[in-house]
């Protein structure tokens, strides 16, 4: 039982850093960014290869963030400058990163068996918690700054932000860069936590992110402390728990992607107030999305 909880929380903390990245693009910027499937692995690959070459684990994480930052900017540039549709820009970067990640690692799977990682010393859980707490704090502070408000504003009413004299193209690129930087950081942490980097570890990242966000928004709407980041972390942990429970219940690890999808579909359907037959039977208040960000907006 203890191992189960430690596993859920440790992974949950790391993944919630990734989910904050998803939150920036999907909720604030209203940009369905799929490139994160590639940047999660990118962060893992960069961190793993650097550590295996003897670079300090912390430095490898910083470089992973920079890698994610660049990948996100490319998604932004494709969309803003070349006018490629948002979803397609993300897919192009995601597919392109597959080859790049293989180049970085040199092979499909890179173990970190005897290497020193940030989790080598001290308690895994506490290390992960420290990371997620710092990121959550920065995330919350950032979205109170002018730049943070511009990102939220562009997602909600771009014309209005243009009328303030702001170059919204730059805002979009910046938001995508920040988002992918966070996702790459989470990828790097995950590689160090589980002791290997794998070319397929990022597949389905977007679904995990959306599932966690929807769960968090549905269940923890009223939390005031650190607002968005708290509901993201709690949502992610509950999501991880349901996944772990389904493994205990006897599902294969290969079934997990399908289970994730079903969780997202259920959470979206329950959160949608326009589906009448669901509403009539629901006794608890699933119907109202938090603030005015519609929980069905994906």
């Amino acid at each position, binding site marked *: 039982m203890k191992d189960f909880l430690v596993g859920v929380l440790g992974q949950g903390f790391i993944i919630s850093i990734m989910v904050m990245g998803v939150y920036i693009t999907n909720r604030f910027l209203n940009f369905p960014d799929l490139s994160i499937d590639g940047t999660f692995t990118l962060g893992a690959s960069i961190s793993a290869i650097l550590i295996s070459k003897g670079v300090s684990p912390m430095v490898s994480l910083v470089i992973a963030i920079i890698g994610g930052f660049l990948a996100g900017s490319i998604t932004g540039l494709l969309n803003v400058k070349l006018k490629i549709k948002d979803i397609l820009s993300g897919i192009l970067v995601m597919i392109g990163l597959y080859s790049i990640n293989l180049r970085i690692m040199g092979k499909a799977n890179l173990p970190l068996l005897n290497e020193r990682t940030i989790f080598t010393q001290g308690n895994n859980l506490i290390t992960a918690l420290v990371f997620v707490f710092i990121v959550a704090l920065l995330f919350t502070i*950032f979205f109170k*700054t002018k*730049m943070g*408000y511009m990102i939220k*504003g562009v997602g909600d*009413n771009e014309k209005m932000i*243009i009328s*303030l*004299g702001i170059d919204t193209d730059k805002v979009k690129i910046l938001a995508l860069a920040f988002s992918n930087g966070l996702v790459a950081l989470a990828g790097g942490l995950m590689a160090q936590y589980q002791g290997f980097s794998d070319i397929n570890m990022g597949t389905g990242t977007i679904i995990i992110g959306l599932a966690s966000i929807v769960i968090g928004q549905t269940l923890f709407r009223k939390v005031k402390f650190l607002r968005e980041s708290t509901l993201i972390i709690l949502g992610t942990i509950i999501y991880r728990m349901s996944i772990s429970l389904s493994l205990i219940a006897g599902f294969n690890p290969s079934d997990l992607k399908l289970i994730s999808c079903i969780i997202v579909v259920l959470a979206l359907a329950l959160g949608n107030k326009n589906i009448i037959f669901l509403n009539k039977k629901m006794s608890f208040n699933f119907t109202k999305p938090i603030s005015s960000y519609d929980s069905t907006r994906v």
Partner: protein
Amino acid sequence: MLRLDNISKTFNENTANEMKLFKEFNLKVEEGEFVCVIGSNGAGKSTLLNLITGNIYSDKGKIYLDKEDITNKKEHERCKDISRIFQNPSMGTVPSMTIFENLSMAKNKGEKMGLSFLANKKDRKLFKERLERLNLGLENKLDTAVSQLSGGQRQSLALIMSTFTNPKLLLLDEHTAALDPKTSEIIMEITARIVEEKNLTALMVTHNIDHALKYGNRIIMLHRGNIVIDLEGNMKKDLNKEQLLGLFKDISDRSFFS
């Protein structure tokens, strides 16, 4: 103040749908003028505003604002000096944010949006003062999300926001057309008061002939990309509805047979 020099604009060039809307179009607006722009659909009113804000670019000609050539300036750069209010009340505000947050953004218009905090509690008093003058009770709703407000309340907020930093030019794009008649009158009153108090230069596109006659100190009528009527001062004051509608009909008839 604002000068459009020999502006030409053709849509769908070299296709069967080619439409030459503006051909060597000229307009000069002096500082402090409040110009009402009227004309039938397709006369070029919205295109005129779009050309001024940089939403679309002209094929030929130059646009000057305050003697500065803004022809090649991008939309967001021009917006630092030009404010625009749209027909759709939700265009001028960010619905998911509170009134306080929206006003805080408007207050920072034209400034660099860096990593300093946006909301400043000290501004609350200033915002309340400005909102009180609207007489809509918005001053007690500073922390309400704008999405909860009615169309009229949003449009008044948009007006306050877009004039917060005294723009050189205020563009009103049928900004009362989506509101009910009573609210529409209230918004027009507020508009006229703000324009007068701040001594703004304004260009108002409207389909409401009564508004066009009652407000502003100059009236122009566009027809197929040309200015067909341009009256100011006492000439505008003496104009009545019948005369204007007569002129309107005249022009439509003439062009119908030509």
